[in-house]
Every structure is written in C-alpha cells, then in structure tokens.
C-alpha cells in the first residue's frame, strides 16, 4: 500500500517535529511568518481595519490556536493564510511562498499544495453529491497531478487518510448520511489530501457538541503527530486553549498575548502541565499589556521602565 516516498516523508517529518520543540525565533526557520500585516477593506463605504500590523510566527510542525472575539481579525488572518485574501501591507510568508507577491498561478498552486483547510459549517466543507472517498480524492484531481502517479494511488491515499482519521467506514457514504463529527473528520482528510505543509481550521468545532469537538481535536493532534502537518486552528472559544500547546490571542487586529503549555514529567512519573502567559514582542520591540493588568494598576499613558539583570520592571507613573 504505502510507497517508499510516503515512509520517507513521514519519517522525515517525525524527525523534524521531534527536533523542533523549542519556541521559534522570530522569522528564522519558521513555517509561517507574518510581520506587521495590515488588511483594510471597504464595507458599505466605510473603511474597516481588520488587521492592524499583526505579527505571528509559527514553526514547522506546531499545533496552535488563534483565539479572539468575533471581529478581532482572526478569520481575516486565516483567509490570508489560505490564499483567499491578500494583505494590504506588511509581510506574510508561508514556507517559500510570499503571500503578497504571488500571481494568480502561484496562488492556485499554493492553495493546491501548501495549505489545506477546514471550515466551520460542516456542510460547506464537502460536496453533497460525492461520497467521502470521492471528496477526499477531489483535491488531488483538481491539483491535476496525482503525485504518486495514477488514480489507484490517489484512491489508496484517500482510504489511508480516512482510516487515519477513524472514518474509514464512511468512505462510500455521502455527507448527509454522516454525523457532524464524521463530516468534519472527512473534511480534515479532504484538507490533507494533497499533503499540505499547513492545515488551517476555522472554528472546526463550532457546530459540534463538546464531546464530538474533543474527538476532532484528537484528530488534529493525530494529524499533527503522525503526518507532521503544521496545524493552525482559529476559534473564539478560549477553552480550546486547553487542547493545544500554543495559543495566540488576537485583539483589535493584533496578536496580543500568547499562552504556552508545557507538559513536564516529574521523576515520579506524574505529568504536570505548566502554563505561561506571554505578551507579544514585535519586531520593533513593542509590547501590549493585557487590559486587566493595566486596569489593576491604574496604568495610563505612561509607565516607568527599569532594566534589571534578568527582567524589566514596569511601574505605573508616579503621581506628583
């Protein structure tokens, strides 16, 4: 069934995943790099700034979530990463592809080969008149080249993906014969059909109950671990943060804070999960503090900075 190439890729990816556990440095060997991305559009004659200089880096093989309230700009960012929208200004790069400079042809190839995505509405991810297997095969066919050659291989890969995601029994069913969770897992398989480097998901659990939602996150983790795909999940649900290693909060069109979860195994074998909240430091050196921190200390307009040996003190401006 599996070709040599498959094995090679999987092994390679696994090695990369193992080696890349640390926090990515800005821009260097990161898969997704966004620098001061700005996106402005017109809505009924009014200019809307959806992204106002957003900075984000995602390392290869990461599983991360973008959270934020609706209107924060997270969905716009996802559209940009999916190659469906173009930033107004800034820099955005995924792998070798510059998202601002691509022409239509390059953009088409980018969507075919570099990214795969899953949308919120379960019904919108799949064509209703095709079976699950056919839906998975479709992107391979749209890409035109069945990379490992022939429809047999494409079919085999489709079945393999469905098995990996635990929905092999649905292969000959049409979307309306499946449950929501099954549909969404098939949708993940569809997104992975062309072996993309990046898997994007927009509220993938939005229409599902929490139990099924947990299953979907399992699927994402499986994909991340087994195939080494970099996964970016957009959600408004802060609880999702508990499911992934890294969570970036987007506020007012900018990345605001970031939560990293580390699982440490103690000497006695118990696992402890430590969470650290970080503020984003952009390339120009700006930091945004969480609003509640500022309100708690009454910080306004100016703060006093003191450089210590291993940290920086930030104090409210002393009142006269």
């Amino acid at each position, binding site marked *: 069934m599996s070709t040599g190439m498959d094995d090679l890729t999987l092994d390679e990816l696994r090695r990369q995943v193992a080696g890349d556990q640390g926090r990515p440095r800005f821009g260097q060997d990161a898969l997704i790099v966004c620098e001061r991305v700005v996106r402005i559009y017109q809505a009924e004659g009014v200019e809307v700034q959806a992204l106002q200089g957003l900075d984000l880096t995602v390392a290869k093989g990461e599983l991360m979530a973008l959270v934020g309230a609706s209107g924060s700009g997270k969905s716009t960012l996802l559209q940009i990463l999916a190659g469906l929208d173009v930033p107004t200004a800034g820099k955005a790069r995924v792998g070798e592809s510059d998202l601002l400079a691509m022409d239509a042809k390059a953009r088409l190839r980018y969507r075919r080969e570099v990214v795969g995505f899953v949308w919120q509405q379960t019904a919108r991810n799949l064509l209703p008149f*095709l079976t699950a297997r056919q839906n998975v095969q479709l992107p391979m*066919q749209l890409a035109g080249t069945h990379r490992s050659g022939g429809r047999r291989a494409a079919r085999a890969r489709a079945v393999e993906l469905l098995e990996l995601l635990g929905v092999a029994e649905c292969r000959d069913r049409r979307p309306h014969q499946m449950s929501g969770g099954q549909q969404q897992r098939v949708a993940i398989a569809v997104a992975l059909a062309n072996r993309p480097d990046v898997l994007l998901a927009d509220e993938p659990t939005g229409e599902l109950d929490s139990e099924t939602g947990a299953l979907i996150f399992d699927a994402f983790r499986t994909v991340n671990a087994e195939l080494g795909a970099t996964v970016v999940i957009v959600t408004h649900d802060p609880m999702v943060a508990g499911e992934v290693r890294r969570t970036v909060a987007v506020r007012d069109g900018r990345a605001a804070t970031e939560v990293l979860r580390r699982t440490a195994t103690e000497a006695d074998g118990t696992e402890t999960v430590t969470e650290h909240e970080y503020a984003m430091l952009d390339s120009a050196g700006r930091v945004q503090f969480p609003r509640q921190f500022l309100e708690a200390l009454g910080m306004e307009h100016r703060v006093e900075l003191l450089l210590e040996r291993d940290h920086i003190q930030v104090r409210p401006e002393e009142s006269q």
Partner: protein
Amino acid sequence: MRSSVPWLWPRLRHRPAATVWTGVLVAALVFLTTALPLTLARYQDTALDTTLRQAPVTGRSVEASPPEGVGIGIVPGETAQTTVGPAGGAAMQAAMATAADQVEAQIGAPLRIDTSQVSWGIQAVQHAGNETGAAVSAPPGQSPGPAPDGVPPHLSVVWQPTGQLTLMTGRLPAAPAGAGAGSLEVAVSQATARTMGWHVGTRLLVPVPSVYRGQEQLTVVGTFRDPTAAESRLPYWAGASLLGAPSLYSIPAPGQTLHYWEAEVLVAPGAVRALPQIAPPEPYWWFPVASGSLNAGQVGPALDMLASLTNGDRASTLLTTDDPVSSGLTVQSDLTGLLTQFSAQRDALEPVVTIGVAGTAGTAAAVLLMVFGLATERRTAELALLRARGAGLRLLFGRLTVESAAATVPGALVGIGAALLLLPSRVWATALGYGLAVLLAATLAGPLRMLARHRGLRPARTDLRTDLVRARPSRRRTVVELFLLVLTVAAVVALRSRGLAPTGGGLDPLTAVAPVLLGLTGALLLVRCYPLPLRLAARPVTRRSGAVGFLGLARAGRGGATGSLLPLLALLLALTTTVFGATVLSGVTERRAALTTQLVGADVRVDAVGSGVPAQLATALQRLPGVRAGTGVLTDPLAQLGTGQTVVPLGLADPASYARVSASIGLGPFVPSLLTARTAGTGSAGAVPVLASPGAAAEIGSAPTTLTSLFGTMRIRLAGVLPSTPFTPGGDFVIAAQSPALAAVHWSSAAAATPSAVLLTGPVQSSAVKALIAASGAQSQVDVLDRSDAEASLDAQPLPSGAVSLYQAAALAATLLALLAVVLALLQAAPERAALLARLRTMGLRPRQGYALILTETLPMLLLAAVAGSALGAASVPLLGSAVDLGPLVGSLDGTAAVTHASPALQLLPVVLPAAVLLVLAVAVVLAEAAVIGRRQIGVQLRAGDEA
C-alpha cells in the same frame, strides 16, 4: 477526460429537476429560434405560391412576341425584317417551334418554365373604336348569333397547334385553296357553338378592311371539347382567352351601356397566310413558370432574370440571334410587376414582424439570464469551495460546460428536431444555424457567468446586504445604465424623425432594437425606483399592529437582486411587446372593417350590371331575414354639375330607408326630412334639396344650380353636407330624394322603378342573398358585394395573414416566457419561503395569513411590472408607431398596393388586457404555491428549509 472522481452523473443526479428544467427551457427557446426562419420562409413561400397561382396567365408567364407593327416573315406579303418566304403550314409550325426553343433557351434560373405547357399561336384581331373583333353577319336567311343590345357578335381568328384539342363534331379546319380564296374553314368550342347558336355548316361573314373585297366567309367545320376549369387556366386556353368560351363585352354608349358577345375561332395552320385579309396576324408565345418552382428567396434573382429578358443581355441576345423567326422577338411579363409588388409588401411587413420577434427574443434572453443567475446563486458555496481547494479556471470551465451541455444539448436537439420536422422548409440550414447558435449561447452563458462570479479568489463578503432596497448600485452600473438610457432616447428620436424606412430598404436594425431597448431602459428605471414605493408602502404598515403586511413588505424588499430584477425585466419586455402587438393587431382588424365598409358601403350590396335590379328582387332582398335596413338607390356615376365641368356620382333614393341604412352602417347618417323639405314654389320651378360630399358641396355652392344626369336636368339646392354615404363610400357624391327628383325632370321611364343598386345592412347571410338572386334568375344582371366576404378575403391574403399569425405567435411566446420567469423566480425562493411559513406557523400564523403573507411579498413586484409594462407598451405605441405601417398588414382587396401610411392608435383594451391576464395567471401560481406549502407537515418543512 481521465477522472477518478465521477463528476457529471453525481452532479446531475443531485439536482435532476434543475437539469430537466434547463433542458426544457432550452428546448423551447431553440425551437422558437429555429422555427423563426422556417416560419418566415414558409409563409412567404406559401404567399408567393398563392399569389402566382391566383394570378392571371400574364402574371405567371413570360410572353414573347414581335414588337408591335413588326412582322416576322411568316406571312407572305407583309413587311418583314427577315422573310422566310411563303411558308406552308408545316414549315410555319416548325418555325414557331424553333422560335419557342430559342426563347426558352434564354430563360434561365431561377425561372423554370413548365415545358409541357408552353403554348404559341397566331392571332388576327380587328380593332374598331371601342370594339374588339370583327362584327359577324350571316348570309341572308341565317342568324349570326345573339345580339343582346342589337349589337351583333364579334369574332377574332386564331391558329394554335391542335394537339390538345378533342374534336367533338365535324373535323378540324383545312387550309384554304389559295391566299385570296375569300373563304376559311374554322372550328369553335362547344360552348361557343352553344352560346352563339352555331353548328357544323354555319356560314359567317366578317368584313375585310380592304378596299378590294367586301367580306370573308367563314365556315364552321367542327366543334371541340370545352376546356375544364383547370384547363382554362393553362396558357393554351388562357393565351387565347375566348377560344374556349365566348364572353359578353360592353361598350359605353350615350345614356346606356351596350353589350355584345365576342368569340374566337380556330383556323388551320395553312390558313395563316390568309389571315392578313381579316386583321394583321400577331404571333405570340407563352412560357408559363412552373408552379411551385419559385420561392420567396428567389424573388430578387427572378426579377434580375426578367429584367435581363425584357430589357437586358438576354433581350439583346434574342434580337441578334441567327434564327430568322426568333430574332427580333421581345419578351414581356406581368410577373415583374407581381414580384415587385410581392417584395415591396414583404419589405413593408418586415419591421412589424421584426418588432414582435425582437421582443420575444429579448424576453427569452432575460429568462435565460435569470435561470443562469439563479443557478449561479445556488451554487456559489460549492464553486467557492472548489476554487478554494485549488480548482483552476480552465478546469472549472470545462466541467461546468460539460455539465451544462448535458442539459442543453438534448434540449436543443429536441427543439431543433421538432422545428425541422414540424416546419420543413428550404431554409433548414439557416434555421439549424440559428438553433445551434442559441445552443452555444445557452451552453456557455451559464458557465461563463459562474466563472465571472468566481474569477477572483476572495469569496463574496456575506456581511454586506445585497438585497433590493439597500443594494447600492456601483458607479460602473450607473454609467452603463445612463449609456443605455441615452441609446434608447437616440433610437426613439431617430426612429421618429426618420419615420418609416423606405420600402425595399430591407430590415432596419433600429426598428428591431427600439422596443427591446425601450423595455430594457424601462426595467432599469423601474429597478432604480422600485425601493421607493416599497419603502412608502412599508411605512404605514410598520405602524399598524398586524404582522403580515410588515413581514411581507420587508421580505419583498430583501429579496435577492437576481431573483427580482430579471423576472421584472422579462415581464416588462413581454408586456411591452404584447401591448404593442395587441395594439397593432386590433388596429389591423379595425382598419380592415373600415376598408370593407369603404368598399361596400353596406353589409351587402347588390349592383345591377345592365339595366337595373328587377323591382321584385329588390323588394325581396330587403325582406330577407337579418336585414336591419335596406334601400334601393338609383345612380348615375357621371352626373354633371352646373355647366358640366364637374362630374359627380348622383344617387336617388327613398330618404327614410336610405337614412336608416346610412345610420346603420355609420356612413354619413342624416335626418330624412332634409331631403323632403319643400321649398317655396313647388313643382318644376322649385329646386330639389340635395345632400352632398364636402367636395361636391363646394361646387354646388349656396345658390341653386343645375344637375344633368341620365334622368334629365334639374335644379338643385344644397340641403346639407355629409362626410360619406353608403352608395358611393369612397368619393364625392350628391344624394336626392327619388320621387321629387324624378318628378322634377318629368322622368317616366320604366327604368325609374328598378334601382341600380340595393344596399342592405344587418347580419344577412350572403348565401341567402345569392340563393334569392339565383331563384329570381337574375344572376347575369346583378353583382353581389358582401362585406363579410370582403373581410374574409382580406383575412385570407397570404402575406399579411402570415405576418399577423407570426406576430400573434410572437406575442403569445413572449407572454408564456414572462410567466415562466415569474414561476421560476417563485420556485427558486419556494423552499426558503416554505421554511419561513413553517416557522411562523409554529408561532401561531394561520393558513389564511400565510396566503396573505405570500401575496404581499410577491404582489408588489408583479403589480409594478404589470403597471409599468402596460405603460411602456402604451408609450411605445406613439413612440414607435410611426415606424410601423398598418397598410401592408391590412392588405388590399384588388391586389394593388394601396399603401397609405396608417400608424396604430392607442386603445384601452389591448393595453390593459395582457397585463391583466399575466397578473391573474401569476397570482394563480402564487396561490397554488401557498396551497402546496400549507398542505405539508411543519416538521418536514423546517428540515427541508434548513437544507436549502
């Protein structure tokens, strides 16, 4: 295409109804398009065929003859350009046949001569004053034949080949002994023998216009069978029209018309040498055009060929040919006039037909656009997904085209096949081209429209309102609309300032485009204005407590643009076309009635041919069942006013009954007492009061004047002016009361008692009139004109009736297409509406309120379209009417193109009726939909709604 994922079948299976509907629609459109050139060619071909078949022999043949006064050397002694010498019968026959071949060789395509019916002969006809033929006398003791008014029968002599004759009695005539024998043997038809009282052995004497001999003696030696009715139309009989049967001729004489019989007798070929004794012999050749050989598309080339034959290359070839007989022959034909008139009428009809067809085409295009627009909207999500997943434009276009072709190709095949099978015609290749063009457009339009929508990658933003009320037209759209507006105004102004295109100028594209442009611009303006009445209507409704009105209007305003605007456009175009068409058609009907009234002057008119309508018959006619009013009129068409400078028809009638007829038919009603009022000084001294036409009244003046007629001279005075009158509806006239007028001239002739014409009004059966006349035995003395017969013959004119039925079909098709547009728009929104109704029903909406809601939602658009469409159609009548001439559509009775320009006039019924019908049908569809929705289970409904 190598495909691991099957596309076409799952796709078609997924929405079979959409595929079937598209196929049916395409089949209908392709059928209409393919049928158009077929129908045009068929009705024009039929019209030409009928015209030719009904034409006299001169109209369907080419005639060759030597120029007048020039002999051809067959007959000795005459001055000939070339002389073949004194020829015997056989030599002369051969020479005639050779000449026939020579001429026939010059007649080329597209004229095809019916070789078997080519006919020739030599005629000798005496002409003296108004009389044709030589007056016959008989040897003493014998009668020359009937002499109705004391004028003896006349005859002329003809030789034609005898191959077609069937001898009944006696033998065929033989050649005379010598050129100057003074005696000829002749044969006559049985009808001639019967009418004239001749038989084998009868001797007749005809005067010889020569100083040496007084008379030529003709001896009847045989009779031949009469031609049948069909045969008498063949050139052999029609070329020598009196050979088959004699005819009664008339010559005007002072105070009366004299009648005499005219016959034609056949002589032997050897007798041709003796013909100059009677009259100069005139050879002739008839070349009939084979029936059905000429189609409407060949009229131009046929005219070219005729021109060449009569006056061009081929004519000069004939003049210079070596053959001694045929050289010098000239060709003439009434076919030229017939074909010219045909093409003129056809060209005059073209703009009218084009307007109808263009309107239908516009409606069809709007419906097709709407179908594709709806399909695009339905598939937006699917296509966006495919694009996002990396489907290239080319691949997508290929798949969509294959998918669309799966519906359109079978539909188009059915449409084309049906059209070609039902309406076979010579222009099938053109028709096929039209059909295939529509197929191509229908197949590609859908995919192209969808691709245009999904060309960019950015999916359409869903948070913007695209509905009717809020939709903010883009700047580009405004510019396009302004451009269309300017174009429409320019087209209408150009059309009006130029008026009717010159006849024969061919199709004027502006004429075709103007109504469609008018409809389109109207629709665009309406779409711009549509939100305003909606908002106005919504305002008071919002304040009231009922929810239904508010909900309905809100939904009406928030319908998608494609679902509302294109049906609106289709409705407007269809209504504009239909209203304009209905106005034109009702104008045609009205004008035909007016034309026949002008022709007949009453519902039935019985004219005396000779002396007068017998008094008994006149009385009996007025007592026929159905007669509302009847009168007899004594007429003199050539009465002289005053000093005799002005000639005006005079009618003498009983004032009371004549006034009743006038009032009943609506031609110049008057009060009878005007004609009976006596002036001071009765008797011969008093002037007779008369009513006159405006023209005649101007001649009479206010003072009494004299009027000289058949009946004598009388003094008349003007009692009133009438616009027209039944006895001579077309022109000037003078009417007087019969008895005082005749008394004034002391007329006592018996003719005074028998009217020259009997006028009847009311639903009289023309068959009853004819039966009565037949019973009285006066068939030959009267002539019957029936208005309904005249109207029927106007309706039956091949070219106008074909155009009228084509126009009717176009209007009907446009109406059906508009209705289809409404139904499709309703069906598209049906699932969503059903879901809404179900949700509202869960909140306690009653079924009756459901009906009301659906109606308030859909009616604003329908009402507006109906009102605006009718208004546009009504506006198009004065705007475009000047470009449409009713004249050729009305047609004419005598075949001459009496084309007086007549524009259609605005009428209430044709304007209101189409919209009313459309509205009623549309409301019926809406109510049916509401009833279907109401029947379903709420649960099923809600789930179905979510799926959609």
